[in-house]
């Protein structure tokens, strides 16, 4: 089996003359937690959408779970789970209905679904709110529900686009503990975040700015190399210097 779960070479996406993603290259190992950082509007979401098969790249190459992102988006969809910053399950359905909807979307059998539901509901503590409509749930619970939906079909790669936005620290901690166990089980995790403490949990990170990846590596090494006090100051300095470049 391929030891790289995600490979991108010179991947670009242009919207007219605007280069939202400009020739990024990266490779993520199977079972790695990869932090995909960058300021708002840097092109992170566009890059993720290309890797998930939602958006066709303008140029470049890429494979996800061994499948080509140009020619095999359907195969990619079967091997990934996706959860975004915005709660994107159906508000007027209960947790259970949402999950069973996505189970059908991924073609799970009834038996598979009930086994998987039992397991996830225990690991993510879903039982207490699973029969309530999503609209009535606090945000932390909704995010757990969304994560469960993304994991139903046992994806080998999990794409998380700011999964912990607006959530309390206790929940964030639990969430990351859970990501660690998943990574131990061999799931590759590709995550964007604005929280630098979360970035430090990642094995490697990249920082994106105006469509390009400007640095990539293990967070501690990067901090040392840049001679910064910590990740937060490094991030701010990098972005600020770049902005200065252009002016």
């Amino acid at each position, binding site marked *: 089996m391929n030891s790289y779960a995600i490979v991108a070479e010179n991947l670009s996406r242009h919207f007219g003359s605007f280069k939202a993603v400009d020739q990024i290259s990266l490779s993520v190992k199977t079972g790695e937690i990869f932090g995909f950082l960058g300021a708002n509007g840097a092109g992170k979401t566009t890059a993720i959408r290309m890797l*998930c*098969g*939602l*958006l*066709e790249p303008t140029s470049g190459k890429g494979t996800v779970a061994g499948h080509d992102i140009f020619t095999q988006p*359907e195969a990619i*969809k*079967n091997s*990934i*789970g*996706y959860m*975004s910053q*915005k*709660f*994107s*399950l*159906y*508000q*007027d*359905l209960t947790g259970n*209905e949402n999950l069973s*909807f*996505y189970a*059908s*979307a*991924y*073609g799970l059998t009834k038996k598979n679904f009930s086994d998987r539901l039992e397991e996830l509901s225990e690991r993510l503590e879903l039982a207490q709110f699973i029969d309530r409509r999503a609209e009535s749930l606090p945000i932390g619970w909704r995010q757990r529900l969304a994560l469960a*939906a993304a994991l139903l079909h046992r994806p080998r790669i999990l794409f998380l686009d700011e999964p912990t936005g607006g959530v309390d620290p206790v929940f964030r901690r639990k969430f990351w503990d859970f990501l660690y166990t998943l990574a131990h089980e061999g799931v590759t995790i590709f995550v964007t975040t604005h929280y630098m403490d979360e970035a430090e949990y990642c094995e490697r990170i990249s920082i994106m700015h105006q469509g390009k990846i400007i640095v990539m590596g293990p967070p501690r090494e990067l901090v040392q190399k840049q001679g910064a006090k910590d990740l937060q100051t490094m991030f701010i300095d990098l972005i600020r210097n770049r902005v200065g470049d252009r002016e």
Partner: protein
Amino acid sequence: MTVSKIRFIALKEVYHILRDPRSLTIAILMPVLMTFLYGYAISLDIKNVDLAVINYDNTSMSQELIDAFYASPYFAPPTQAVNMMDPEEILRKGGANAVLIIEHDFEAAVESRRPFQIGVMVDGSDNNLAAAVQNYSSAVISQFVKDQLPPNLEFPTVKLSLRMLYNPDLESSHFFVPGLVAVILLMICALLTSITIAREKEVGTLEQLMTAPVKSHQILIGKIIPYVGLSFLDGILVLFFAWVLFKVPFEGSELLLLGFGLIYVATALSLGILISTLVKTQQVAMMLALTATMLPSVMLSGFVFAIKNMPVSLQYLSYIVPARYFVTVVRGIMLKGASLNTLAFEGVALLVVMLILLIFATLRFNAGSAK
């Protein structure tokens, strides 16, 4: 596999419909309300009626009378020659909208100033047309008689004997309400589906759904199916009210009409789905659905204006308006008791339009999600 994916999308859509009682109430009450308002409020005018002639008299005077009819702007010879001698048959086969019948002895009667009757038989299912024919032919006949005789002479009584085929009491509602059913259903159906995908785009649920291995056509068809049920209910309500309130006769087969109704709502819902793939927000979807259905289906369906009186370019344009076919179907079945044979063209045309709409919607949906 495909069937089960379509089914679960449809099931989810049923939940959405049932859990939004406000929208559901609107979806059911609006068409009923519109039937009331429009049904009581409309009426109109006509030219170039296709007039066939059965001339038993065969004199120069009867020929002059026929010429007088055709000389007026209101009557024209049928586009296809009619060789039948049974006026009912001419009307039923659609060769003409009205038949002028001149019995033998006409010339002799006028000359000897005996009372005489000229027969006109009209297709009464189009009540505007029937009323117009009545007025115009009386005018043409009395003018003709006046011209034939020297002044100061007493006119012979040449009377018009008008017979209606179908809709004999010439109720305007009998003519309008069936057409109304078509227009209202199209509007409601397009409105219902136009907001479904737009809503998912707005909320962000569509993006999540697209990360799952579900195909575009499965999503689109799955979304249409539950609304077929709801719209079909609307159709039954509108037809029921039309029948009860306006006492529109029901000559034909209820089952046949319901069958056509089912095809028609599915076509209209496909139009809504296409609109839905073109826009980003529910509000724009609603506006577009109303403008795209209301004007064309009122103007180009034959509901208000006869299609054959339109400029040729508009006549061609009318072929893509689904209401055009259903107006013919409802009038045909309710007023004339038309059978499946007579309406086969409309049935096939509706299915073709539905298919075209669905193909466009799928193409648009794919293109839109890859942007």
